[in-house]
Structures are given as structure tokens and as C-alpha cells.
């Protein structure tokens, strides 16, 4: 059946995200993927640091379903130190947990096989306690949790989204979540975009976030990190991309009818490319005045990528202030 709303969304939908099309050669893809995984195990610390995770995922899903995988997996194609650290953390945690988890599979299989009734193996119906065993099953997980806890404490602090992502001068960006698109303001550059985030490679950037609608969650899978954007409030996320790339980000918190299309393009470009983009934006784009912004928000639809040469200064703070009533008594 037709869904007029969906049709409208499709008309507005930008021609991205830049995913590969359906794989022409599925078997070839699978081979390539396996090579990538194998290679990443040899080269620890390369950007392919999520290989352990990917390997686990493939085990989980089962080799039989492998050949149908045709998607580039952002968590393998991580870009930047934040995403890389997060991926390593995931891998380390998995390895630590394997110590207690793998024996479960082995023991379950062994015991089910050995002690099935028809096999008539040793039978000890009253055996129900063993101090060494009890100590082990309490002690070993406790040790692992202590190790994990140490990881959690240190990494949660080092990967705090509010902490600057590495050395260098920070590029400030402001993002406003609206129904159902993202407005990006570059206060230092004076330019603004809708549904496109352009950042220079190898330079930390900070996105200050708020929402001009319901609660949203800002997320760029390839760069790592996710944080809520809420009306009248200001959150922030600090990220960094290592090398030029095309990615996508989106709102992860359900926000109504256009939610599915609330994706934006992320372009990581070199330092020169970034200057070129800024000049291009300066020269070509229109103006995001308060009125234009108001009209954009009112539309309640997804929007194509748009660039603005300038925006009314203070727009971001005004959006926040709109929801905050200062005491007058």
C-alpha cells in the first residue's frame, strides 16, 4: 500500500549515505572481509582495531550467514582515536570475559553429553557442595570484575565526551536537532549547514548540542560516541577523525514520523580541503537568518544537504534560551 508520507520523505531524502551498493560478488566480499580480519590480528593497534569484535560477531552470527554480508561495517572502519579506543575497550573486555564465559559452553556441552541418563555415568545424587569450587566461582569472576572495573573507571574518564579529543586547536561546532534534520553552525567560520557535518582531519572538534524538538541522540558510528540533545539544555561531544573519509551520522532516539530519515552526511577532509570548503560555502550559500531557521524548523520534514554562507550569531543560544524561563519574581 502507498504511504503518502513516506513518498514525501523519499522525495526529500538525500542521495546518501555513501554505502556500497548491493555487493556484486558476495563470495568475493566475504573473502575480502576475512582477509581484513586476519590482517588486523597481525597488526595490532591499526585502525582496524575492532577486528576482535568483528570476529566475535561473525562467530555469533554463524559462518553460514557470512556470504550475505554486504555492508561496510562502521565499527571495523573506525576513524579517529575515540572510536579506536572504544573498539579496543570492547575487545579487551571481551577477552577478559572469555575467561569465565568459554568454560560455560565447554562444561555445558561436556556435562550434557557425559551425564545423560542413557549413558549411565557416575551418579552422585547428594553431591551439592565443594568449597574449592565455590571459592573459584565467586573468586574468579570477582577478579575479572575488578580488572574490568579498573578499565571502566580509567576509560570512562579518558573518553568522557566532554573532554577534548587530543591535542590541537579545537574546532567549535554547534548542532541543533530539529524535526527531522540536523542544523550545524560553525561559530568560528560563520558558515552553517543542514544535514552535513564537514570537519578537518586530524584536528579535534567539539560539537555543542541542543534540541529544538523532543529528545534526540547524536551519533556518528564511524567516529564513536553518542550523546543526547535536549531542549533548553546544552550537551557536548568531543571527537576527532584521523583521515579523510565519508561517513554518516544520525539521531538514535525515536522522535516521530520523520525519524528514519534524520541522518546527516559526515565529510572528513584535509586541512586544505577544509579551507576550500569554507570558502566555497562563503561564496555560494544563502543566509540562515532567524526567520529562515524558524521556517526550516516548522517544516517538520527531512531536508536535503544545504550550506549557508552565514547565520545569525547567537542562534544556538537563542534556541536554548527559548525553553528556559528566567525567574522574574
Amino acid at each position: 500500500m502507498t504511504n503518502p508520507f513516506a513518498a514525501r520523505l523519499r522525495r526529500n531524502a538525500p542521495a546518501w549515505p555513501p554505502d556500497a551498493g548491493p555487493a556484486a560478488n558476495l563470495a568475493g566480499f566475504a573473502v575480502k572481509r576475512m582477509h581484513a580480519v586476519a590482517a588486523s590480528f597481525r597488526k595490532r593497534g591499526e585502525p582496524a582495531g575492532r577486528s576482535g569484535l568483528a570476529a566475535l560477531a561473525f562467530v555469533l552470527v554463524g559462518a553460514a550467514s557470512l556470504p550475505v554480508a554486504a555492508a561496510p561495517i562502521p565499527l571495523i572502519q573506525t576513524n579517529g582515536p575515540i572510536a579506536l579506543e572504544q573498539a579496543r575497550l570492547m575487545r579487551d573486555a571481551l577477552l577478559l570475559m572469555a575467561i569465565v564465559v568459554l568454560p560455560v559452553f565447554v562444561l555445558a556441552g561436556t556435562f550434557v553429553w557425559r551425564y545423560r541418563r542413557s549413558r549411565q555415568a557416575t551418579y552422585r545424587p547428594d553431591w551439592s557442595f565443594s568449597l574449592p569450587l565455590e571459592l573459584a566461582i565467586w573468586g574468579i569472576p570477582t577478579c575479572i570484575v575488578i580488572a574490568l572495573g579498573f578499565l571502566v573507571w580509567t576509560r570512562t574518564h579518558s573518553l568522557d565526551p566532554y573532554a577534548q579529543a587530543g591535542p590541537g586547536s579545537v574546532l567549535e561546532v554547534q548542532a541543533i536537532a530539529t524535526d527531522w534534520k540536523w542544523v550545524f553552525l560553525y561559530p568560528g567560520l560563520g558558515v552553517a549547514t543542514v544535514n552535513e557535518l564537514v570537519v578537518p582531519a586530524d584536528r579535534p572538534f567539539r560539537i555543542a548540542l541542543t534540541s529544538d524538538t523532543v529528545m534526540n541522540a547524536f551519533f556518528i558510528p564511524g567516529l564513536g560516541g553518542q550523546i543526547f540533545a535536549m531542549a533548553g539544555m546544552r550537551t557536548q561531544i568531543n571527537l576527532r577523525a584521523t583521515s579523510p573519509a565519508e561517513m554518516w551520522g544520525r539521531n538514535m532516539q525515536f522522535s516521530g514520523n520523520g525519524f528514519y530519515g534524520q541522518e546527516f552526511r559526515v565529510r572528513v577532509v584535509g586541512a586544505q580541503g577544509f579551507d576550500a570548503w569554507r570558502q566555497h560555502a562563503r561564496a555560494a550559500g544563502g543566509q540562515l537568518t532567524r526567520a529562515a531557521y524558524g521556517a526550516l524548523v516548522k517544516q517538520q520534514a527531512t531536508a536535503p544537504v544545504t550550506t549557508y554562507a552565514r547565520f545569525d550569531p547567537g542562534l544556538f543560544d537563542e534556541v536554548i534560551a527559548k525553553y528556559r524561563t528566567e525567574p522574574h519574581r
Partner: protein
Amino acid sequence: MWGRLSADALPVYSIVAAAAAGIAVLGVLAVIVLLTVTHRWTWLWREWLTSLNHRRIGIMYVIVALVMLLRAFIEALLIRVQQAIAYDSGGFLPTEHFAQLFTTHGSIMIFFVLMPFLTGMINVVLPLQIGARDLAFPWLNAIGLWLTTAGAALVMTSLVLGRFSTGGWSGYPNYTGAIVSPGVGPDYWIWALTLAGIGSTVAGINFIATIWKLRAPGMTLMRMPLFCWTALCTSLLIVFAFPALTVATSLLWLDRTFGFHFFTQTDGGNMMQFVNLFWLWGHPEVYILILPAFGAFSEVIATFSQKKVFGYASLVFATMAIGVLSFTVWLHHFFTMGASPNVNAFFGIMTMVIAVPTGVKVYDWLFTLYRGRLRFDTPMLYAIGFLVTFVIGGVTGVLLAIPPVDYTVHNSVFLIAHFHNMLIPGSLFGMFAAFNFWFPKAVGFRLDDAWGRRGFWFWLTGFYAAFMPLYLLGMMGMSRRLERYSHPGWQPWLVLAAFGVVLIAAGVVCQVIQLYVSWRDREALRDATGDPWDGRALEWSVASPPPEWNFAVRPRVRSRDAFHESKVEGLAYPDPGRDAYRDIFVPRNSGLAVAIGWAAYVLAFAAVWRIGWLAALGLAASVLLVIWRSFQTGTTERIPAQTLYDYDRGRREALMRLVPGGEIMHGAAASGARP
């Protein structure tokens, strides 16, 4: 006069929704016609609806759960099919209808499937296991049932009149506030949850008082079957966690209906407080759902391994530790809200700490298998399937407990895969195991094992096929609650997930067939001894189904696995002598609880549609009915000692006949399996 209710409320916005409404209405009509044609109304009213007997109330709880499970499962099927075909297309569901589906699916599974399922199983089993004649407060028990049923009826009503919320089962404002969602949807959600929540609280109070006060003589706490321990712990969690939900939903209702500013975006409202309150309830709720299943697994694994459970004290301690710790982890549901690293890290670490007692339980169960004599009946299959599958969910749960890792998969389908990986093997499999295990005790005949096993295998394989791809998709960045998408690479995995749900559907069909076949063959499957599995706890010492008074003479307990030990000693069915029998009192049936449930339904329905006079009527009726009850006398019925004595003598004689030679044990224990 009728508030917001008008002809616009009919579901003409979507063919699928209209069809669902039609099926719901026709289903109700069909049941009414069937009952009328077969002249079953009086029977239904006298034997079931007005009953205050714990076993019957438990069975009605389970029936509510199974009916709602069918609906929620069909919704899951629709969601998966939609996502499988919705690459760059609208699929077959309008956007808003899809949002209603994921909201109702979640709300129903939690509040109207798992909660009534576990409440029902505790109802049936708990008094029998501790040697009590009923729960502490039989009438209150019926009120809990009928409030839950009223909530379920309200959700079903939303199929036909108006629309349900689109805000997800967690209903975050401001999306569910009056400005963004002015319709009746969130109000349906609020009231369904509130009614069910009050019903659950009532049940929890009842279970705690029962365990604390009505244990048989000699049944010390450390001799209680593990299912009772988990029931106790779950009840404590219910009693202390549900108030947070009640507050959250009530305040949201005040916001929506009377313009308060708790969770609004303006005028000093703070939507983060809703999220905080919701998960303040929501995390203990996870353990509320899982602990009774843990208890059931403990019973099942010991029984079908034919040996004592390993590490009883460990299991008890782990249960209580989980109970307390479950109140220290709720922030991990919103790590991404932006709390400072100290807060996030603290709650992350506490979440990992809770994994320790959970892991201990898994190992205790594993070592219960060790040197056992394993039988693989349906309940045991669910238990083994649970053990292996649950740890995968545990691993992904610990991953999610690491805040920086959570940032990369929060709100993605990885999260969906994780909590289904906890709740399906953890809670639902537990309830299926419990259902198959205790069905003969509650109803009097066993369930067909062959169809039960088929159901299990379809559920297990279907689970893996449906949810493992979601882990991968989550790592690819796929958001939850997407009704369409433009990433071609996702589609193959979503097709695989849909195939998984089709497998689960086959499992559901097997379970329906299992019920039918068992009913058809009930004479062959009858449980004549009351002890079909060579059971270990006291519930197997009484007949199946047990008489209204459960125990004519209350048993005196000397050890754990009380019934098993008495079988070993050859004293399973002792004759206490005529003098031990006294008159006892059982509660008379009462229709008032049913009436209170429906009065609450009227109140809630009127509040949803803002029909003031009707709401006042519903409220007044509820209050007056409670007062009326307090003025009633003669609410119990005396059963003379002679009746009890005759019944017990008859049962003992029947048991003698069943097993020649007067040896009235059976199963493996009787066949010389002991070394």
C-alpha cells in the same frame, strides 16, 4: 459528555490496524457466543472468575499472559517483516502504526506477558512449596489479578478505540508530553501501566507476607525451595521499585491532563527526571522478570539431573545480592545523557558487580548437572538452552555496562538484541520451563513432550537467527525503531532476522498444538500420582491438581528437598492418624474483586478519554466495593475434618493401588537408580 471520544477514534488509518481491531472484536464476540451456546457462563463465573483459590487465580494469570503473548508476538512478526522489506521503501505499515507496534510490543511483553506469567506461576507453586493452604490474602490476590486484567483490557481497547502511544515502551517525554503527543495514546500507555503496576504491587505484598508468615512448621528460610527464594526477592523488588513507576506515570499524566510542569521542556520542567524515575523502576524490573525464572530453572535442573542443586547457599546469597544491587545500576540505561565520568563509571562498575552473582548462579547450575542423571524433558531443554544462550546476553550486557562502549551501541539494535537475549532465554524460557514443569500440578495432566520439544527447538534456533544479526546491525550503527532505512547492506541481515521470527512462529504453533494434543490425550497423560517428574519439593507430595485446601494436615519439614528426602526414607505419604485432622476454613468465592477490576477499568478508560463523570463513577465504585467487602462477614467456608480425612485416606489407597507392593514411590528413585 463523552470527552474526547467520538467516531474518529475508530482505526481507519491503516488496513493492518483496522484488521487487528476487527480480529479483536470478533475474538471477543466468538468467546461470548461460545460460552452462551455451551451454557458455560455460570460455570465460568462460579468455578473461575470469582474464585479466590491461589491455583485458579494463578491459572487465570497465565491465561492472560498467553493471550497477550499471542498479540505481542504477532506484533513482533509485523515489525520484523516490515524491516526486512523496508529498504528504501515504505514497507506495508504506515509510519505511525509501526511506532504503535513497537510501543505495544514492548509494553505488552513486559507488563502483560512476563509479569502475569511469573505472578501466575508463583501463585500456583509458592503455597504448595512452602506447605501453605493458600496465599496470605486470597481476596487481595484476586484484586491483583483483576487489576492486571483491566490493564490488559485497556491495551486491547486501544486496538479498537483510538491509538496507542508511539513513544516506545519507555515513553520518554517530551515526546509523550501533551504538546507533541496530544492524542490518547500516551494516556492509554500511562493507565495500562499504572493498573498493572498496582496489581503487581498488591501481588508482591501478598507473596512477601505468605513467605514470611505461612511457611509450614520446620520450613526455615534456608530450607525453602529456591523458587520461593526468588519469589521472595522478586516480590521485594516489586514492592520497592514499582512506586517509582507509579510516580513517573502519574506525574506524566498530571503534565498531560492538567498542565503540570514535571517533564515539560519549559517552565522548569525536567524530562531527565522522568528518565531517571523510569529506570529507577526499570532496572529492578529486569530482575523482577528474571529472578523467578532463575528459581524455576533451579528446580528444573535439580529435578531432571536427579540430584541436589549445587551450592544452595550460594544461590540464595546470589539471589539476595542481585536483589539489592539491582537498585544501584539504573543509570546504565542512560549513560549517553551526559552525566559526568564519576557518575557513569560508578554505575558501570556496579553493573559489572551484579554480573558476579549472576555468573555464580550459572556455574552453580552447571555443577548441578555434574554427575547427575540427566533427563531431557521439555523443561530441561529450556533450562539447558537458557544456560548457553543467557551467557551471551550476559557478555553483551557487560559490554553495555562500559560507558564508552555503550556510547557506540546505545539506542542501536545491539541493545535490542541484548535485552531480548536476556528476556527471552532468561525470563520467557524460564516461564516456558515452569509452564511445562508445573502444568500437571496445576491442571492434572502432563503436556505432550514431543510437541513441547519441537516448540523448544524452533524457539531456540529462531531466537539465534532473529537476534544475532541484530548484534551485528547494531555495530553497523543501525538505530532501533526504524521503520525504513536507506542502507542496502542492512537488508540481508534483517531478512535473516525475519526468518528467525518465522522460526519462532513455528515454535509458537508447536506450543499451541502441544496444548491441543495434550488436552485431547489428557486421559493418557493424566498425572495420577501427583509426582510426574520424581519431584523434590512439597508441591509434588499432593495430588494433581491439589484439593482446595492443598494440605489437609500441614507437613512438618525436616530438610531441604523435603519431599525427596521423605521418599528416600519411604515416608512420602504418611498417615498422620484421624486425630491430626481439624476443621479448616477456605475463602468463599467473591465477585467483588472482579467488580473492582472492572471499576478500575472504567476509571482508567474515562481518564484516557477525559470523561469526568465516568471517571468519578469508576473511582466511587472501586472505593465503595472495598468498603462493602470490609462489612461482609462469613467470607470463609468450613471444611469438616472428616471430609479431609476421607479425602486423604482415599488418596493414600489410590496411591497403593497405582504402585503394586505398597511401594508408592516411582520414577528413577524407585527404579534403583541410586548407587
